[in-house]
């Protein structure tokens, strides 16, 4: 797809906006629709778009599999550790009230952190799945087309 100049230009323009929108969705979930999951999907789709236009190998340079393999579990770990933090700070598992000076701040902080965890894992998993498919060689009979 190297010769699709228009696609390349448009997507180069588009991708930053998608990323920006993803960030907005990630952190604006408290106020409107959205949250970590949706943001993660958007992040991932930006990468997938990049990979489709510029090739998977280029995408892998931006976001190598090694980094992904690290990011996939990290989101979940962040989430789970937030839960443990609740215990350590004297509350129950996943108790955000105790995370900051007063319950409401605690709740805000807790939600922010776990949404970040969700976003990380979701985005990383989606890209991982895409890479896994892309890394597969095609062996399709012609008649199937």
């Amino acid at each position, binding site marked *: 797809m190297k010769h699709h100049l228009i696609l390349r230009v448009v997507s180069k323009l588009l991708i930053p906006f998608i990323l920006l929108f993803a960030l907005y969705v990630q952190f604006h979930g408290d106020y409107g629709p959205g*949250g970590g999951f949706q943001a993660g999907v958007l992040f991932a*789709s930006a990468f*997938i778009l990049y990979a489709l236009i510029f090739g998977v190998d280029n995408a892998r340079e931006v976001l190598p599999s090694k980094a992904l393999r690290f990011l996939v579990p990290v989101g979940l770990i962040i989430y789970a550790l937030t839960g443990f933090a609740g215990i350590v700070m004297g509350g129950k598992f996943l108790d955000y009230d105790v995370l900051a000076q007063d319950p409401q701040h605690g709740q805000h902080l807790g*939600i922010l952190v776990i949404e970040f965890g969700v976003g990380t894992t979701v985005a990383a998993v*989606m890209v991982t799945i895409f890479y*896994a*498919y892309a890394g597969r060689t095609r062996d399709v009979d012609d008649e199937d087309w």
Partner: protein
Amino acid sequence: MGAEMITIVNIVLLTMLCFSAVAIMLLRHLFAVAALTGAFSLLSAGLLVALDAVDVAFTEAAVGGGISTVLMLGTLALTQRREHRPPRFSLPALLVVIATGGALIYATSDMPAYGDPNAPALQHVVPVYIEGSRNDIGVPNIVTSILASYRGYDTLGEVAVIFTAGIGVMFLLGRRREDEDDEGMVRHGPGNDPESSEPEETAS
């Protein structure tokens, strides 16, 4: 939107959903099916918006219209484009479906009416969520406060599910090139490959 308007939108969208589902069932060209699946998801996202579930609609559009369509196209690229067998009628399937559907229709007669503001589900737990979201948590989006806090544990599970899927896909499809030498051989043999079950191999 007025209630009648929503009713009409609902009926139109649901009818279109049914048609696209039937088309998915009958079409043998899997690319067309993929496209229809994407359309199906977007239609249902529209319906979800009409039903006030904006978060869900967002997610459904991103997941159903985006991710799962991409996944399906990826799968088709690696497998085949056409369903080889023509659609055929299956009596057992029909019977199962009729029984299941019958049970649900039977249930509807005692369900709270659609849109009923006095439905039991609205009376019991939900008021606490609305108040709590305002006062205890201070997050305007009630869905977020339930999702992340009241039922935050469910969401932890949800992330674990996604993580499982990631691990699973990596396990099944990951790193093909490096594996080719040792897995490709077994994959094409009729199972019990003698090479892979030599006792010496594990003597270590």
